[in-house]
């Protein structure tokens, strides 16, 4: 009998792995496998015309943060790379905060509509999210470029004499990322606000709290997991953004994504590109672990 159930369990396990095999096969070829190869590439020597030569070298990792002076061979921190890393982190944080500023009231607004209407409002959030990233970026470029709608209107009204340079600045990159990633903030915020128990809010008012106090001391703590989830969903793609800074930064305001691409294009330094992308991945993993820890703590607290 024990033997029989053991056999059944063994059979179930075999069936399970057979069912998983196709998915895992594709994921190994086109997701986890390539990542491991990237890690290996970051320790190889750069080939003269792109690609690599098969010899160990730590140059790529060295060049991520340091540079060697071509005249006197002294070492210094790589200002160019550090400023790109700093810009990426800075713009991603700004994007996340602005998304919270707009996303929080929007999710709250939707969550407090009549039940029948909520899905319709959420649909309005989902439609831009399902619309092609290039199209959305292009739409906002049209709005703010020198010959674009905003400048044309302002000039025809006589408010300005020459077009405002909005496009190709750090501001326009942040604006573009807010526009593109805002739905990712609203989705999890709405999910946690929809379950908000308003009797707690009422209790707050009964105890003479002001609206601001209720917001800060009752509502915000209850939907904090949603805020954290939304922040991660916005911060992570912002940090790795490639299309938005390429189209809206005009080549002068690179972010990590563009720096990585450069190594595979004009830079022809594949190992450095590999090392940079592993670095980006490491930063993202740290952010995700901080998220898991923060959500874990919340769950313990509210038990």
């Amino acid at each position, binding site marked *: 009998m024990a033997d029989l159930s053991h056999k059944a369990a063994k059979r179930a396990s075999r069936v399970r792995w057979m069912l*998983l095999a*196709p998915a895992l096969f594709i994921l190994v070829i086109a997701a986890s496998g390539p990542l491991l190869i990237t890690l290996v590439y970051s320790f190889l020597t750069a080939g003269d015309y792109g690609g690599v030569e098969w010899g160990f070298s730590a140059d790529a990792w060295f060049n991520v943060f340091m540079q060697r002076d071509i005249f006197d061979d002294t070492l210094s921190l790589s200002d160019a790379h550090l400023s790109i890393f700093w810009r990426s982190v800075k713009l991603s944080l700004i994007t996340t905060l602005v998304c919270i*500023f707009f996303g929080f009231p929007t999710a709250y607004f939707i969550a407090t509509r009549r039940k029948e209407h909520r899905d319709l409002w959420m649909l309005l959030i989902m439609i831009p999210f399902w619309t092609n990233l290039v199209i959305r970026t292009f*739409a906002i470029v049209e709005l703010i470029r020198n010959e674009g709608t905003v400048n044309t209107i302002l000039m025809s009204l006589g408010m300005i004499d020459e077009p405002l340079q909005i496009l190709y600045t750090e501001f326009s990159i942040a604006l573009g990322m807010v526009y593109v990633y805002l739905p990712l903030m609203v989705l999890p915020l709405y999910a946690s606000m929809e379950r908000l128990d308003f009797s707690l809010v009422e209790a707050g008012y009964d105890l003479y709290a002001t609206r601001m106090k209720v917001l800060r001391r009752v509502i915000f703590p209850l939907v904090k997991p949603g805020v954290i989830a939304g922040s991660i969903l916005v911060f992570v793609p912002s940090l790795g953004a490639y299309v938005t800074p390429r189209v809206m930064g005009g080549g002068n305001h690179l972010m*990590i994504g563009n720096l990585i691409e450069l190594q595979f294009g004009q830079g022809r330094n594949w190992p450095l590109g590999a090392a940079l992308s592993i670095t*980006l991945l490491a930063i993202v993993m740290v952010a995700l672990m901080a998220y898991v820890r923060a959500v874990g703590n919340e769950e313990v607290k509210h038990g």
Partner: protein
Amino acid sequence: MAKNKGFNIRRQTGFTTIALVCFGMLYLPIVLLVTYSFNSGTSIAIWEGFSWRWYQSAWANEQVQEATVRSLVLAFWASLTATTCAVLAALATTRTRKFKGQSAVFAMINQPLMVPEIVTAVALLILFAMIKVATGYSGLLYLVVAHSAFCIPFAYLPIRARLQGMDLSLEQAAADLYATPFQVFRRVTLPQLWPGILAGAMLAFVISLDDVVITEFVKSAGQDTLPTYMLGQLRRVITPEVNAISTVLVAISVTMVVAFTLLSKIKN
């Protein structure tokens, strides 16, 4: 204070205003984009009158035709592959006890959601460059495999959600009546699961159709899809032709998201 008549506990000062500004901000650029696709002039900021000319010129543009067909073929094969894999994987991982290697399997399935696209794109570039040199093959298969991989989690999630919400007793009843496991799947599980499968397939289709970063790095020369073609166009002088192509794609997205919402509402 709270007992005052007309005091709405749900109201927060300024929230409605910000929310409406937010919706306006989300839609204004898209509305303008769609509007200027009907412009009879060559400008995308000065309105000169209504015409279909940019739709006609986009329709007649051979590069656009090729890119459209390529995008659709790619999205079809990628969503088919990803959905098939996702159904099997969901059957294997839902409604079972915790098994050895479970967290590793989940980590692998969700990897495309967590790893930044640019990192995956570069990793695929490296691997596929090696394979291209070794085999000499440079067809569409690379893109199909790459797209299938990042579509798997998107197809997997709705299917798994559907499977978790399903009643086990029907399947047990069928098994008690001596149905083979395959018959149970074919006659009992599948008919209940199909809205989830369709939702997953549509999500995968749209995700594949929208992808630009991974495609940009993996594609061989002359393998532009619509998004990468448009990305290339943005560097040049833009005519409303790009708006016309965008409008069609926006219309497809709207249709898909509405259908997806309706599908996920079908009760068990």
